[in-house]
């Protein structure tokens, strides 16, 4: 029993017939070839598979693709605009927010979700927002710095606009 789903991924409309048991992460990676979303623990603990579903951070290994029917999805591939990295991506680059990089796409999307909701997060807010994302390399401090740096940049940007 295949089910037709229509989703928007990184701004592009997609329509596919999928098996109900297909997990969202496999839909993104195997059907759409968006392999930036990583498969980590597969048990909804590590957060490597985090994407934005209608703006909210979710673990795409614990969601069926059919549950996402009609949703607007953002993956790591959808953050950069016109060759310009997203401020959270820049933050990770400049503040050494990654080492091996495995957790990075999920971490960055968790950071983006936080800053969309709370442009002025405290360090505690940031640590709470990335509590669902495990990193085995950095010890988290540089990740916190990266998100703080992104928050500052986003504030400057919005000031320039206004």
């Amino acid at each position: 029993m295949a089910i037709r789903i229509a989703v928007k991924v990184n701004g592009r409309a997609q329509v596919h017939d999928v098996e109900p048991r297909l997990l969202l992460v496999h839909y993104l990676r195997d059907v759409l070839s968006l392999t930036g979303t990583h498969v980590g623990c597969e048990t909804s603990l590590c957060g490597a598979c985090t994407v934005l579903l209608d703006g909210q951070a979710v673990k795409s290994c614990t969601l069926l693709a059919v549950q996402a029917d009609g949703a607007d999805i953002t993956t790591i591939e959808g953050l950069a605009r016109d060759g310009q990295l997203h401020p959270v991506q820049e933050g990770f680059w400049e503040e050494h927010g990654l080492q091996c990089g495995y957790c990075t796409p999920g971490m960055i999307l968790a950071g983006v979700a936080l800053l969309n909701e709370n442009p002025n997060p405290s360090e505690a807010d940031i640590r709470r927002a990335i509590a669902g994302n495990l990193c085995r390399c950095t010890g988290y401090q540089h990740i916190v710095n990266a998100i703080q740096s992104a928050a500052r940049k986003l504030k400057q940007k919005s000031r320039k606009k206004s």
Partner: protein
Amino acid sequence: MIPRGFDYFSPQTLEEALALVAEHGAEAKLLAGGHSLLPMMKLRLAAPGVLIDLGRISDLRAIREEGEQIVIGAMTTHAEIEKSGLLRRRAPLLAEAAAEIGDVQVRNRGTLGGALAHADPAADYPAAVLALDAELTLVSQRGTRTVAAQDFFVDLLTTALEPGEILTEIRFAADGPRTGSAYLKLHQPASGFAIVGVATRVQLDSKGKCEATAVGVTGVAPKAYRATQVERALKGKALNERIIAQAAGKAAAGVEPLSDLHASARYRKAMAEVFTRRALALALERARRRQ
């Protein structure tokens, strides 16, 4: 990890869902937020032939006031409960418990009804709904019935839900004057589940004495329970640290605590006492602020 294949339905209304549940019977599982069921299906601990997704039934996703009552739809997410201004203002206990569940991503998907129906002995909500004396609405094609939280949790992963029934909403009284509540939890550091979680509500009378308390405890026993001996020991007393500490000693009276690799029965019992004491003290402080 890939679940076994299944047929999938996503009804738009409760009536459609009830018809599907009646039609597919024991073959079918209800899918709410999926954060307990899907991991079990991926591990093949569960392999339902039919999945009925309640996620498109928008009527089941709301938080509202009905006079002095708060009503929450079963498909309301933990994040929505955590951030609800109405709950924070009128009955913060459930919001405080929701904020302690899992992590951001889990709270964005997991639902109140899904968590209650799953009845994990280490889940957070059961302690809170017990302390709130919540009533749960169970609907089937046969009709609607209301079950008290006390009677809903039957045993480990077992509830009063009958075949064909869907948990649609829960309701409880908003906090009255001179009432304070608190939920405190000892996290299992890897999973975030409760080794011990204690939800308390303290209501003072006009003279500042204890009119009533409610103490719900999760994580300790095969099912969440009300620590009635603690409640009885506090009733009518002028509460202070010593009296609370004494009463909290009965937090695990009469229950046989679970024992696993995360915590021995003795440790759970000791922590039940500690967290009951702290939660009561915090709830009392909050009740006094609302004099």
